[in-house]
């Protein structure tokens, strides 16, 4: 029973972080039709922004979360304003933007390395201490990560489903031309989506850095996993991404526990291959129905 609790707690903690990263990535893909290869660096920047702020002012967790969101949102908006909007209507947008954001990611990583160096700093903004669930010790930080993921993803879900703002985002994602005919400023929607996804990435970065350490490369692994989660869920399916993040993290955690941590991710990738053979559009992906 303790083993199961341990696997569950680890899986849920990992899944929460993956979900924060994957939901943003999926939101961008679903709305703009682009894979943001700089998404990992959005996470890294969120973590470093909080680290810098905390080093100077000693901020509490809640302010740290807000700072990570602001940092992520700002870099998301800048990416849109300086790169994406100029490429959006180009014929090979999907390929071009993949290369452009990969380049941006490398540039930002080098900038972080230049400013902070490669030293693995610990993230000062976190909650210390543990509590027991049965025989298993659970850190308060793991609980915080879970709660923050629930609040952030719940807020995004509410925003998308229940507000006029969210309806405009979904409408733009489903049919850009029709959304424009309704009076939606689709370029503003794209900017807002980049900000929203950036904010989620910023928080994800902060949470990841509280469990490990800060490093310029820290966004690489979560980006890869978020990418895999998005593909398994079905590209652009925001809700599927959240569910798959938790599911795959639980599987990774179980495999890691029984066979060793190094087998967790490869097994996850094997499962992905099987899923994609079975359902090429992903678990929650739907074929577009074209009615004439």
């Amino acid at each position, binding site marked *: 029973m303790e083993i199961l609790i341990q696997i569950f707690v680890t899986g849920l903690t990992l899944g929460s972080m993956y979900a924060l990263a994957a939901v943003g990535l999926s939101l961008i893909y679903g709305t703009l039709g682009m894979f943001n290869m700089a998404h990992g660096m959005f996470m890294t920047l969120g973590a470093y922004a909080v680290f810098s702020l905390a080093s100077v002012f000693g901020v509490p967790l809640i302010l740290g979360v807000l700072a990570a969101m602001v940092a992520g949102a700002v870099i998301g908006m800048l990416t849109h304003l300086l790169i994406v909007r100029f490429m959006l209507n180009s014929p090979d947008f999907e390929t071009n933007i993949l290369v452009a954001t990969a380049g941006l990611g490398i540039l930002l990583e080098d900038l972080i390395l230049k400013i902070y160096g490669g030293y693995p700093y610990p993230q000062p903004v976190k909650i210390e201490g543990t509590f027991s669930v049965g025989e298993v010790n659970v850190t308060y930080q793991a609980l915080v990560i879970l709660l923050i993921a629930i609040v952030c993803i719940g807020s995004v879900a509410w925003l998308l489903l229940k507000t006029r703002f969210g309806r405009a985002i979904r409408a733009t994602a*489903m049919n850009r031309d029709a*959304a424009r*005919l*309704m009076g939606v400023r689709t370029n503003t929607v794209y900017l807002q989506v980049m900000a929203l996804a950036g904010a989620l990435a910023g928080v994800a970065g902060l949470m990841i850095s509280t469990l490990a350490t800060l490093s310029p490369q820290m966004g690489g692994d979560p980006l890869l996993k978020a990418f895999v989660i998005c593909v398994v869920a079905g590209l652009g399916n925001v809700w599927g991404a959240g569910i798959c993040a938790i599911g795959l993290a639980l599987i990774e955690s179980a495999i890691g526990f029984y066979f060793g941590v190094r087998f967790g991710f490869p097994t996850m990738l094997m499962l992905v291959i099987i899923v994609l053979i079975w359902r090429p559009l992903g678990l929650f992906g739907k074929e577009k129905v074209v*009615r004439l």
Partner: protein
Amino acid sequence: MSALLSATDVVSGYLNRPVLHGVSIDIAEGEVLALIGPNGHGKTTLLRTLSGFLPTRNGQFEFAGARLEHATVHARVEAGLVHIPQGDQLFAEMSVEENLLMGAYLVTDAREVERRLDQVYTLFPRLKDRRPQTASSLSGGERRMVGIGRGLMADAKLIMLDEPSLGLAPLLIEQIYDALSKLRTEGRSFLVVEENPSRLMTFADRLCLMDAGNIIWSGSTAEARKSEDILKTYLGGH
């Protein structure tokens, strides 16, 4: 009647292929103007140009007293120019009600949105029963009703309809034109592209015949009835 829409010498098209070669039309407030003519001769292109999807390369376009030839799609919708395109263009994974609410995207008064929603449900009672259903699960006729209903949710001074009866069963065409006629009596203006001649002759005030990107004839429906050429060639003898 004063001119609500006035387009003069409009030139437009796709990339290096001009389709409209100096089209001029006027629509008065409360008037229904129908565009007729063979397929591929610029009717849909004219609607797309007026709604801002295609750039106006030359000419002027005035709507409700404002020059709009270089305005964004958003600015044109805000001015009251609503385009209901061919093929519905619904938001497939949204419910019927959400699709209708998107039509009132620029209306910020919640009570007004509710009032318009009731109005659409009165015009198309079938949509009220389907309100939680996703648009992708609707039949062709219901989709058309949502498309038209969504257009009515906006603050439209002029509604541009592209082939509202295309592909529909006669009974559904009847229902849709009944609804449009009700709106007409409220004083709404329409610019309609339609292939169904019998409908046009009763619904429209005036007809413009488009051929090879030009307006080659225009006149009232009464005048069209008198013109043997127009009747036989373009209106199937109606």
